[in-house]
Each structure stands twice: as C-alpha cells, then as structure tokens.
C-alpha cells in the first residue's frame, strides 16, 4: 500500500490533538517512516507550550472587585459596594460566603491580613484542580523530565513524592508565577478523581524557632491546606479533604521529602547521572 499523503493541516491538527480516524492513522504512519514529520509536530507543540508559559502568569492575577460583582448577576451587583464594612470586620472567613474564594483575597486585604503562601496555594489549587483540559503543563508520563525541568527553573532540587501506596497517581506538574519566586506544583489524583496538589517555593521565612517543623492547617471553601517551612522552602499540600485525612497524606509527603538527598538552593542543578527510563 503506497503511503497516504498528509497535508500541513493534518500535521497541525495532529499536533493540537485534534485529529481522529484515518487522518490520524495516516499521520502516525508518516511519523514511523519519516523523522522530519516528528520534528515538525514537536516544533508546533513546543511553540504551544512556550505560548502557554508566556500567557499563564496572567491567570494568577487578583481579580478586580468590579468583575466579581459583575459575575454576581444583575440582582446582586451591589453586594460588594454595600457590604464592605461588614465583610471587612470578619476575622475568619466562613465557608459558603456568596463571593467565594476569589473575593476572599480582597476581603483579607481590606481586613489588613496579608495574603500568604497558604492562601495563594488554596487559590492555585482551586484554579488548576478543576481544570479538565490542562491541569498540569508536564504530564506524568514524563516524570523524570518533570523533576529536571522544575529543578532547573526553580533553582532548587525538586523531589516528586510517590503517593501510590495512598492510592494517588501522579497527574503531572507545572510552574506557577509567585509573588516573588516561582512556585512548583505537582498534582495527584485518586480513583475517585479527587485531586491533591503539592506546591513549594523558596522562602525567606524561617522555620519555627524551636527547630521543629510546624504543620499548619487552613481550610477555605472546601479546600484544606497543610503548610510548613523546611530548609528555606515553604510547602503546601492542598485537597478537598478534612483535616485528619489530609494530615495523613501530608505526613507521607513530608517523610519522603525529608528522606530525599538535600541540595542547597544556590548549588547548580546536578547533571543527570542516570539514563532516563526507556
């Protein structure tokens, strides 16, 4: 059978994950025959990834109050304008508040409470855990490359815990634009499709003065977060769970991170010594 010719449109659609049926088969046959086809597809995908990398930081920006109000709909448009003094006076935020977690940051700012890494982690978790198309930038099938990429970009050794024994498989990871430093994120999923994220970034915060690592807990709008500081790095483990359940996972994560070989943030990333798995 003579090879089916493929068009430029076929290549593009295949690279974008939008080719099915016999056109898809034709491209895959061409891929097997001709290395240059693979190069062109890889080039499109690399450009897509670069574009996402350039444009994703905008997603992390705080949403202005007038847009939150506009999302309320016509009958509740005035709620923020009228309700500010009441909301600002609240010391703790109760789940189920009408304005939701986007407005939470605004209320906290008004109340004089700074936005912390833990609160950002809740926001980031909610943003990406709910994403069906691209919750992560690098998928789990490239796990070795993921760890290397995160290490290189963050300037600190990235370790990806294995949560298989707890019933969680790795979905993948991404970088998130942080206040000052980038934040690494890896996401896991269980059989019920519930997702947890581990986020970390270099911090100037000191760990507890006693020298022990303090686990702190935060729960907002259905998302629980355990966070701690260890060795100049702040960590946050987030998931849609109650405290006890999340603590169990956090302990496993902490144990694995503590057992991993330590490389100081200022050291250059280690050259890959082992061959990547075939």
């Amino acid at each position: 059978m003579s090879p089916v010719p493929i068009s430029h449109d076929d290549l593009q659609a295949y690279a974008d994950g939008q080719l099915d049926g016999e056109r898809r088969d034709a491209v895959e046959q061409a891929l097997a025959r001709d290395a240059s086809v693979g190069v062109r597809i890889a080039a499109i995908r690399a450009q897509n990834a670069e574009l996402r990398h350039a444009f994703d930081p905008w997603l992390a920006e705080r949403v202005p109050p007038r847009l939150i109000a506009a999302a309320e709909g016509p009958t509740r448009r005035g709620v923020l304008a009228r309700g500010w003094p009441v909301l600002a006076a609240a010391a703790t935020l109760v789940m189920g508040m009408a304005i939701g977690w986007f407005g939470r940051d605004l209320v906290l700012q008004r109340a004089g409470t700074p936005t912390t890494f833990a609160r950002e982690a809740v926001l980031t978790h909610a943003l990406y855990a709910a994403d069906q198309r691209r919750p992560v930038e690098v998928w789990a099938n490239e796990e070795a490359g993921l760890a290397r990429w995160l290490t290189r970009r963050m300037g600190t050794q990235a370790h990806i815990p294995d949560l298989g024994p707890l019933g969680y498989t790795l979905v993948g990871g991404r970088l998130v634009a942080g206040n000052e430093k980038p934040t690494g994120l890896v996401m896991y999923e269980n059989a019920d499709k519930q997702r947890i994220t581990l986020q970390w970034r270099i911090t100037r915060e000191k760990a507890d003065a006693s020298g022990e690592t303090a686990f702190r807990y935060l729960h907002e709008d259905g998302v629980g977060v355990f966070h701690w500081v260890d060795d100049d790095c702040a960590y946050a483990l987030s998931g849609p769970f109650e405290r006890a359940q999340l603590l169990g996972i956090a302990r496993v994560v902490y144990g694995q991170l503590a057992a991993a070989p330590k490389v100081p943030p200022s050291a250059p990333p280690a050259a890959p010594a082992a061959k990547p798995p075939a």
Partner: protein
Amino acid sequence: MLVALAPRAARAERSTLPLARASFHVVDAPLPHPELLAAIPRLRRYARVLAGDWARADDLVQETLARAWEKRRLWQPGTDLRAWMFTIMHNVFVNMRTSASREAMHVSLDADSEGAEGAWQIPVQPQQFTHVELGELLQQVGRLPAEQRETLLLAAVEELKYEEIAAVLSIPVGTVMSRLSRAREKLRRMADERPAALKRVK
C-alpha cells in the same frame, strides 16, 4: 471570507462539549456561579489579547459578564460555559470596535490614540523564572495581525477545539486552520530573527 452572521441564539447553542457534571434546575436558570468566577481569569486573558490594553480588557470582561447574564437562558447546563462566554466576549468586542471606529471618523486622530487596531501595550512583567525570550514572545504575539493572534491564543493557550474556535469567531473551520498556520509560521520566523545568544536550546 466570513460566514454570514448567524443569529446569536444559534451560535450560543452550538457549544459541543458536554461536561459530566450535574446541572441545577432552578426556575430562573441562573448561571453557575463557581464556574463563572473560575472563568474570569481566562476571560481577562483573552480580553487583553483582543483589546490590547489592560483597562479596556477589564471593561470588555465586565460587559461580557453583563451580557452573559442577560442571555443566560441561551446557555445549556452541562455544556462548556467557557466556550460560550468566549463567543459572547468576541461579539461584544466586535460591536464595541465597530461603534468606536464610527466615532473615530468624527474625531481627529492624534498620535497617541489608542483606537489603533493591533496597538499592543504589554507592561514589562518581572519574569524571574523564565528566560527573557518569553517577554519577547509576548511582544512578537503582539506584532501578529489581530485575527491571527486571537485564533492562536484560543488554540494554543486556551486549547479550544477548532470547531469551538470557529463558533467563537464566527468563521469556518478551514479559516481557523489557515489563520493558525499563518500565525505559527510568522512566529517561527520572528523567533529565527532573534539574536543567536537568546535562542533557547531544546
């Protein structure tokens, strides 16, 4: 060649992605609030690409949200809310641009007029963890023709299907693909023109 404008109702109902998620049957059929809030960052991002500056982008998002509420009965629960909102935003933008250019004809254009299509004001953002290339990439996207960069953003960054993009932009799927491939080719050529020292080695 643009496809003839279909009535708005038909466009909105052409959303194709069914989401496996419970729909709430409320008499007034409000839009799902958590999904609306979650969509705002993506709407803002696309609005910036359309409008070219941050303030007008937020105006566009606000107008889009208001219009979405007006037309909420056209949205089918279980279908892709984001794609539907992008369609509304694009229509709002086209209407705003049409009336703006009509007004501009009566006003003398000065050199700093922000009405110029394709004017692209990207504030320099500190990107500590990326190479300087990504700031350059934003600039290069800004130099693409407007219709190419809109299509490219929806495909590469928002990852809508070609059929969804066609619905958002009211153009045939074939036009989506040809704009995409022209945009990609242009970006590749701009990348090749970068100084060699800044080229990323894969």
